[in-house]
């Protein structure tokens, strides 16, 4: 366990204090190690993403940050303050959206927001939160009649009424249709522009790429990669991913060395008969791949390319797909 950091004696926002500081964070549930020695620092004004498959420990981590789950070991500081001594102050200054909160179905949107607004000493008017979450038309509608996306935006609005400096969003778009997701992304963009620190978890890599300044990829309770989406993608070793399958090799597997020998191919792996190559520049490498396969007398049955994504980073780091679990 790491020495506890001395807590800032003043409760005023500290210009230099990071929005979030985790040191040696650890949490087990019975035999399961949910969070396994996590260190993390998120700067003020940053939009930070915790990525990983289900069960990677994202929610446990974020709930420890939110002061809902006490860690077994390690320290948590938010805005330079700790939960032990400044819980009330922190609750006033952060906004939280939890996974799968069901608000009372028979209250209206406006009633729910007035209720949550009443918990904060200062904040924005309930009407303002309704406008930000684009729920104006649903102001008088009961929660039970809202769509999934609208419910999620209501959850966001309840996190916003206290005009928080720091926002935690746990899987904000899980289960939403593409349009509802884009709606929510716009809202997060707006929050970023207003200078708030946003920390979100997601298992959608496109979401993290679209929204986050920096991401941490989590697996089995640890951070296995940390950086901007561009840095992480670059770490795969190529900007592009080529996927291909061949036939006509008469049961003999295509020798990966033949593929990795091609200039510009950075890495190779096979998954269910599909060869995946990371490639730096398509226009020079792809013709050579074609030529090599041709020379072996094989036939291409599948061929596609895409720009490398965080998904590919996760695959490269763990050998597993994100949605496998």
């Amino acid at each position, binding site marked *: 366990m790491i020495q506890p950091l001395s807590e800032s004696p003043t409760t005023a926002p500290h210009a230099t204090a990071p929005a979030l500081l985790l040191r040696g964070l650890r949490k087990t549930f019975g035999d399961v190690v949910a969070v396994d020695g996590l260190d993390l620092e998120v700067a003020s004004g940053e939009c930070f993403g915790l990525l990983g498959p289900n069960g990677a420990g994202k929610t446990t981590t974020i709930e420890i940050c*939110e*002061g*809902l789950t006490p860690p077994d070991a390690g320290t948590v500081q938010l805005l330079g303050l700790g939960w032990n001594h400044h819980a*009330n102050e922190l*609750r*006033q200054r952060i906004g*939280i959206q*939890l*996974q*799968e*909160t*069901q*608000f*009372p179905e*028979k*209250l209206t949107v406006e*009633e729910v927001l*007035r*209720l*949550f*607004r*009443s*918990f*904060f*000493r200062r904040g924005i008017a309930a009407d303002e939160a309704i406008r930000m979450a684009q729920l104006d038309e649903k102001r008088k509608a009961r929660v039970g009649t809202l769509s999934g996306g609208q419910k999620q935006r209501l959850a966001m609005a*309840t996190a916003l009424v*206290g005009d928080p400096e720091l926002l935690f969003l746990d899987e904000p778009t899980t289960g939403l249709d593409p349009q509802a997701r884009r709606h929510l992304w716009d809202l997060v963009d707006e929050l970023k522009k207003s200078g708030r620190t946003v920390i979100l978890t997601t298992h959608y890599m496109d979401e993290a790429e679209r929204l986050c300044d920096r991401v941490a990829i989590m697996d089995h309770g640890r951070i296995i990669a940390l950086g901007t989406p561009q840095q992480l993608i670059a770490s795969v070793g190529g900007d592009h991913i080529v996927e291909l399958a061949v036939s006509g090799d008469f049961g003999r597997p295509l020798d990966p060395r033949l593929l990795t020998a091609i200039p510009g191919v950075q890495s190779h792996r096979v998954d269910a008969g599909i060869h995946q190559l990371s490639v730096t520049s398509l226009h020079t490498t792809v013709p050579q791949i074609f030529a090599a396969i041709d020379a072996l007398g094989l036939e291409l049955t599948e061929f596609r390319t895409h720009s490398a994504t965080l998904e590919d980073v996760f695959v490269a780091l763990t050998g597993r797909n994100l949605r496998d679990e």
Partner: protein
Amino acid sequence: MSRLAETIQASSLFQLTAARFRLFMREPEAIFWVFIFPIILAVGLGIAFRNRPADVLPVAATTPQLTQALAADKGLRADTMDEAAGTHALATGAIQLLAIQSPQGVDYKYDDTNPDARIARLLADRAVQAAAGRRDPVSAQNRLIHETGARYIDFVIPGLLGMNLMGSAIWSLGFAIVEARQKKLLKRMVASPMPRWQYLASYLLSRLIMLVVELVVFLGFARIAFGVPFRGSLVELALLCLITSLAFSALGLLIASRAKTMEAASGLMNLAMLPMWILSGVFFSASRFPNIIQPIVRALPLTAAIDALRGNMLQGMTLPQLGVPVMTLLAWLVIPFFVALRIFRWR
């Protein structure tokens, strides 16, 4: 003035209580169970136990002469049937007593554990002896009274009131809290700066608002429809209802403090309430239970509540006279409340 109203409206305790109240009013089933059901029950019992002329008891005899002798009593309705038919009628409850002509005189066949049958036995024997020429040595006259306050409906109204205060407090708190926990709303609430005590207090406050409506509706109905008496102080009656409701709210809070599912909660609620429905003297006096279990019966909050309500309404007793039940209720208020606060599961 309007500034003050705005401040109150913006306060979290007001908003929490208002939310609770709204949720209750938007739940038609809850309205039914809290407001309508007790009235239906009171009407049903009022009809079943309305003041009829004293019951005429059905009896039978094996000979026409005997039947005639029995029919001479206004309290009996007599038929003639043979012994086999009479025994069957006894077994099915169609008659309370069968008088069998025997060589020595008359045999009465009846169930001595049934009060009606025992009355039938007394009336039948009196009729038979009178028909045979017996004269009473002492002349006796009857002076009948039908006083309000001594009727069954007067007895049962405070019982129903107590039962209703128990049910509405335990159900409304228990289900609402467990539902909020199950839907992760409780977790969301404690993730906000909401003071936790206010969340629990809002349940009690909204319960008290409902209590006023409940009392006015139910007792008003009992007064108008049945002329049930209010012999004690109305202020003290209101205070007793308040203590009762708070005590059961505390119990509801305790029941809901850990349960994670509605099924578990409803099992616990029934477990808590069932003994009281049976033992606490809602429909008949709790003193009928054997002495050995009386300490348990007396310690139940519903027994204390009903004793206190009956004492106030029917006997006009004052609060100091009701010290024992009131103290029992206060103990049931304080202990479960603090235990619940300690063990409450917020997520």
